[in-house]
Structures are given as structure tokens and as C-alpha cells.
């Protein structure tokens, strides 16, 4: 009990002594969290978005000849060695013809003069619905093109590629802002704590002389870092949430953004972001203490 009483009073003293820089740090931490969380939110929504587009994503491998059951088995095996897939469908010449016929509907008569096997047989490969398979769809199609008896491989090349580059860019931005978050948080927290320590050198010396344990001296500073982490990250996430709600409200109704369902982080992700920020702040304060307390 007395331990926490003394520690808390010490923290109070520190805050009173260096509150302008403490405030600066708090703002920096929350801004870093905000920036990172913003890009991460866009990115994770992008992933969801990719999931939806993935529904329509399939690779069609046109074959020279209809594979027999044995060859089908073999092809199946070869395809799945590249990556797990959602589904593999073999479409025979007849199936293709029938499908085409249904698509034509009333204009069926254009097919009258055509032989029933004018369409090539094909294999429809539907990749798993995740971003990874979306990203490597190009590689996958190159792989499929090398299968024996393949004529050509078709997929929505254009948008897949664009989407691919866009998510790549976004993931780089997320990484950069994550690095920024790590650096600013550790650096700023370390800096303010250094300021506090230097401002109280005489007292810390005396504390050691009268027999203060390392924990007694350290805990207030650690707590200070912890507090920065808790407050800073909560503030960052909360402001992002407000921003998110505002955008949703602002652009609700018929419009471009309504095409996709935007969603905020799950509580787990929020807690993870806050937890990591706390960890970073604590690391920041711990590293300064190791350097400046000489204990």
C-alpha cells in the first residue's frame, strides 16, 4: 500500500515538474498511433475488399484436349502443389457449349451451324479467397500455363494487377508509419524521461544514499512511460474512431463509398495496438533509465 502511495506521489511530482514536455510527448504518441492506425485501417479494409473481389476471381485454363479421368487426377495434383485452391472444375467441350448456349438465350440460333465441339475444354481454378492468392495470381497463371496440354490461361489481369500494386503500396505505407510509430514513441518517451531525470539528479543521488532500492527509483519512471503509452494510444485510437464515424456519416447515402462496407478495428486489434504502444513507451523509459540512473 505505502509502496504505491509513494510511487504515485512521485509520479505526480514528475508530471508537475515537466508537464509541458509530458504533454508534447502525449500528443506525439497519440499522433503516431493515429497515423499508423489510420493506414492500417485502410489497409485492413482493403483486404476485406479484396475478399469480395476474390469471389469473382477465377483462372480459366484452356486445354487442347479433354483430359481423361486419370489425367484429371494428375492435373489436380499438379495444380494443388502450387497452392491450395478453393475449387477446381473441369469443363468439357459439351459443358462449355451448353453454358454458352444458355448465355445466348434467345439468340440460340447463331449456334445452329456450329459443330457441338467448337469450344475448347477448360479447367476453372478458383483460388482461395485471401489476399495472398490474389497477390500471386500472376505467378499462378504462369505456372498453370506450363501444364501439359494448356492452350492459354485467362483471368481478370488488369484489375488484379492494379489491385495488387495498390495493396503493395498500402502495405509499405503501413510499414513505414509503423516504423515511425515505434521510433517516435520510444524516442519521445525516452527524451522526456531523460529530462525528468536530469531535472532531479540531486534528489535521485540522495535517494540512493538513503537506501532507496532500484525499484523504488525506477517504478515512478516506468509508470510514467506506461501512462504515456496508455493515454497516448487510447487518445489516438479514439480520435481515429471519431474520424471514422464522421466520414461514415458524412458520406452515407448513395455514393461511391457505399459500394464497400467499411468497418472499424475489432476490439482485439484495438487492444493489440494499445498494448504494443504501452510496450514501446515502457521500453523507451526503461532504456533511458538504464543510461541515466546508473543503478
Amino acid at each position, binding site marked *: *500500500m*505505502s*509502496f504505491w*502511495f*509513494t510511487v504515485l506521489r512521485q509520479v505526480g511530482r514528475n508530471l508537475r515538474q515537466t508537464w509541458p514536455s509530458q504533454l508534447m510527448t502525449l500528443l506525439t504518441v497519440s499522433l503516431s498511433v493515429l497515423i499508423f492506425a489510420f493506414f492500417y485501417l485502410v489497409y485492413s479494409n482493403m483486404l476485406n475488399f479484396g475478399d469480395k473481389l476474390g469471389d469473382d476471381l477465377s483462372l480459366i485454363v484452356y486445354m487442347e484436349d479433354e483430359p481423361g479421368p486419370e489425367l484429371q487426377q494428375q492435373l489436380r495434383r499438379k495444380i494443388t502443389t502450387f497452392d491450395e485452391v478453393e475449387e477446381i472444375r473441369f469443363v468439357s467441350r459439351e459443358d462449355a457449349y451448353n453454358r454458352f448456349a444458355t448465355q445466348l438465350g434467345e439468340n440460340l440460333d447463331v449456334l445452329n451451324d456450329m459443330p457441338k465441339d467448337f469450344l475448347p475444354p477448360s479447367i476453372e481454378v478458383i483460388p482461395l479467397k485471401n489476399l495472398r492468392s490474389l497477390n500471386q495470381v500472376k505467378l499462378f497463371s504462369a505456372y498453370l500455363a506450363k501444364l501439359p496440354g494448356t492452350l492459354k490461361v485467362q483471368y481478370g489481369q488488369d484489375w488484379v494487377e492494379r489491385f495488387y500494386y495498390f495493396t503493395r503500396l498500402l502495405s509499405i505505407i503501413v510499414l513505414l508509419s509503423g516504423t515511425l510509430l515505434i521510433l517516435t514513441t520510444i524516442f519521445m518517451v525516452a527524451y522526456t524521461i531523460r529530462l525528468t531525470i536530469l531535472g532531479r539528479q*540531486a*534528489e535521485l543521488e*540522495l*535517494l*540512493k*544514499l*538513503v*537506501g*532507496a*532500492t*532500484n525499484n*523504488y527509483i525506477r517504478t515512478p519512471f516506468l509508470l510514467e512511460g506506461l501512462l504515456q503509452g496508455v493515454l497516448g494510444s487510447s487518445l489516438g485510437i479514439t480520435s481515429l474512431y471519431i474520424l471514422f464515424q464522421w466520414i461514415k456519416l458524412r458520406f452515407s447515402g448513395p455514393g461511391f463509398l457505399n459500394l464497400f462496407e467499411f468497418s472499424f478495428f475489432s476490439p482485439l486489434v484495438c487492444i493489440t495496438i494499445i498494448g504494443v504502444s504501452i510496450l514501446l513507451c515502457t521500453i523507451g523509459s526503461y532504456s533511458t533509465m538504464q543510461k541515466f540512473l546508473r*543503478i
Partner: protein
Amino acid sequence: MNTQMTNTTGTGETLIEMIKVSKAYPPDIVALENISVSIATGEMFFLIGMSGAGKTTLLKLLCSMETPSKGLIEIGGNPIQQMKGHKLAKLRQKIGVAYQDFKLLTDRTTSENIAISMEVSYKKPQLIRKRVRELLEQLDLSDKHDSITGELSRGEQQRVTLARAIANSPTIILVDEPTGNLDATTTEKVMKLLTKSNKAGATIVIATHDDSIYRDTSHRVMELRKGQMYSIAGGASL
């Protein structure tokens, strides 16, 4: 050992033991040379000597603020040179030191300064408040409870330092020049407080050149001269 002969209050069991201790400051200032002394539990020990004789240095070695260049120092049978971290902190909680240069936090109040030595061993706030008031009363400083120590007179600061040293009821009390800035009446009050702590069981080492406090004492008095220790048989015979 002549400890038993001259020591009237000690139990005879050795608490502080210095064996062939030397201390040299860089570049080549020899502050203490080959000092061997043992101080018993409950003893009151006077360390006298001219300015620059090495009194403060000896006290600093005892509370491990400085490390000896040679020799061994044991407290309660444990060598203190290698002590670090938690063990050292625990030891220092048991040693109250009134520094010659006070080492007060001059931007804090008197009561806060005294409380520090009790806070580090997590004493209850009520207990601390009570003890602080008690000590201030005994040292004639009751009206300075909330004064900033930087604004006190030297004599007042000296007493605050002493109060901080004994507040946590340490087993060893080291006092460096406790009466340098005090008049006769206040000196008497200070000595009364120290005697009281000694009666309560604390082992006390007083470094001083104020002969009024050791002139009539029955306790052991030793003199440092140019870093060497000389025994003065019984203070009363001076």
C-alpha cells in the same frame, strides 16, 4: 582490544570492523592510512581531528559512499565493498547519515526532507507524519515544518539533516560535525537526541572538532591525525 575497557554502553559485540583500511584520492592525496578499528553494537564513538584529517572520508567509507583503496570494512560481519543493488540499499536503510554538507533537497519543505529516509523503506504515511513532528519538536524546529529548507539558516539546516538521519530509527547513525553552526543550548538539544537514540540501541559515530561535546564524555574518543588513527583513552581524561 581496548573496546571493552572504554565502552560503557556497547554490548561488546562488534558491529563495525575496519581492517587496515587506506583511502587515497586521485592523484595522490592520502586521506586515510592503515586504519584498523572496531566499533561495538550500541557504542557511541567520537572521531576527532583537525580539518582535513580524514573524518568525513572515514564516514563516507562506512556508508559505502566511497570505496577504500585498500583494506576491508565489515558491518555485522558482512564485507560492504562488494555490496550492490538491493543488498546495498537495504544496508543503507539501516545507516542514517547526517552529512557535513547536509545534502538537503533545498526546494522541498523540512518535513518532506525528513520523510525521505522513511519513505524509502515504505513506512506508513501516518507513521511518517507523527515521527517527523516528534523530531521537529525535539530539535526546536516545530514552526519550520512547511518551510523550504533552502530558506533556513545553516544551523536549522544542520538539524534537519540530523532529523533525516535518525528518522527511520537506523541501527547505525553517522553524524559529521553535528554542532558546527549551533549555539550551546541547541548543541545540548542535539546531543540529547543522539544520546536518546543511542540508549534506544543505535550505534553512533560522531565526527567533530567541537570539544564541548566530547570533553566530559565517558565514551570512546579517537583522533585522526594526517590519516592515521590515535586512541585517546577515555574522553573524560582530556
